[in-house]
């Protein structure tokens, strides 16, 4: 959560810089926004599907917490599942449902179009994401995130599977419904799934997106960047530091890109992303075969 807040503050500072204000003022922008939303009233909408609408917002934050659960922080893991990588994947699919429920529940055309945009986008990024996740698992010979971290004691996976790492990072932005992948809540749809949200409901969704970004960065660190490996500092500190760095890099990168329209993204995901992920997986498999 702290990482998520730091990321939001960092992004706020960058936005402030872009509009010509002092970056320091931007650092506090997320705090101001949170306070504003806490003071704002929730809306009771005519004809809304309330359970799905409100449930969708909460699910994002829950998904982020669940995802962090399998990531080792130093020697300590909340739940060291034997199939942690599949867990991460399953949790990311929860975001599909959450995004659609958010858009459907509000009973608004813009929100519903936004929800469908998010799902269309999900269909483009999901397969590259799956195969990007498989590569480190194959290299480590285990689906356990802890084992994958241990397998990187000699060489970080990012060194010899850069394509998987890059794809995974892009997909972290995508399943956070954020930055260039926030088409479903973009200004061209008057806010899309966010169009009808106010107060605490909106705060939950915004915080959930940041939390997912932070959780995704933490997973990227564990799978590709050697987890807690590093000199001097304890392992947990390295995990945290690397997560912050990955997140900062993602925030900077995302700000450089415009919205990636889902109709364009589909072709890129299937004709570029998927083959690249598969080719990288082939290389990894051959290396593993050669070793054994």
């Amino acid at each position, binding site marked *: 959560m702290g990482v998520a807040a730091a990321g939001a503050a960092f992004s706020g500072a960058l936005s402030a810089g872009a509009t010509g204000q002092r970056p320091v003022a931007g650092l506090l922008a997320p705090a101001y926004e949170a306070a504003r939303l806490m003071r704002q009233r929730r809306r009771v909408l005519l004809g809304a*599907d309330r*359970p*799905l609408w409100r449930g969708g917002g909460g699910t994002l934050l829950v998904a982020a917490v669940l995802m962090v659960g399998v990531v080792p922080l130093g020697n300590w893991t909340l739940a060291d*599942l*034997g*199939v942690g990588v*599949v*867990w991460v*994947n*399953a949790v990311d*699919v*929860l975001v*599909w*449902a959450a995004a*659609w*429920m958010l858009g*459907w529940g509000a009973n608004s055309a813009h929100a519903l179009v936004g929800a*469908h945009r998010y*799902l269309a986008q*999900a*269909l483009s990024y*999901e397969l590259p994401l799956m195969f990007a996740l498989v590569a480190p698992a194959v290299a480590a010979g285990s*689906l356990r995130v802890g084992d994958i971290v241990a397998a990187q004691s000699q060489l970080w996976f990012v060194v010899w599977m850069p394509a998987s790492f890059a794809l995974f990072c892009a997909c972290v932005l995508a399943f956070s419904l954020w930055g260039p992948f926030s088409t479903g809540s973009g200004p061209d749809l008057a806010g899309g799934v966010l169009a009808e949200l106010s107060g605490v409901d909106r705060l939950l969704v915004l915080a959930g997106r940041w939390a997912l970004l932070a959780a995704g960065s933490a997973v990227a660190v564990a799978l590709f960047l050697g987890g807690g490996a590093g000199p001097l500092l304890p392992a947990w500190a390295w995990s945290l530091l690397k997560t912050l760095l990955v997140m900062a890099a993602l925030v900077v990168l995302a700000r450089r890109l415009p919205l990636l329209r889902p*109709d*364009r*993204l*589909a*072709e*890129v995901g299937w*004709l*570029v992303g998927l083959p690249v992920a598969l080719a990288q997986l082939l290389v990894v498999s051959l290396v593993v075969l050669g070793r054994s």
Partner: protein
Amino acid sequence: MITGLVFWVLGVLAVVSGALVFRFDSMARATYALAVSFIAVGAALLLLQLDYVGLVTVLMMVMEMAVMAIYMIMFMGMNPALMPMSMVHSRRTALGISAGVFLVLAAGIVTVPWPQRRAAPAADLTASLGETIMGSKMLVMMGISPVLFATVVAAVVLAAPRTRYDRFGDDLRSAPSDPHHGGVGR
């Protein structure tokens, strides 16, 4: 003790949300009630230490429900998708079939002589499960999966009314006249 409790909670959740699918009068709610039911089943499988099977159940079913909701609303025509509607069709036949299936399965549980566990479970259940199911047939499976995938794609291409074949005939080199450009510059 706690495991037993959790199991019962999950079991009740699965059954109740499964029943709610037929009680709700909205397609979206029915779909996601089914998703909750499947999540509960997946979590129950986790309790049986079938981690992989449990998680894949959650993964596949949530994904499927998300897409299914769209298809239901798309294909159910207009008003039924958005109006309150009954989720039950041919009530009597359906009730008969489900009661019959339940009785057969329940009879199976009671009458089948379940084997006793002879050895401790494998250390890595996921690996041994995969070994048992696939084992010697790995090569065959690897061969079949691309064929299956190609079949799915071909079926979609043939079924869709507005594909590149319909538009271009045999000449596939001409530029597509889609309302939108794709993302890789074609």
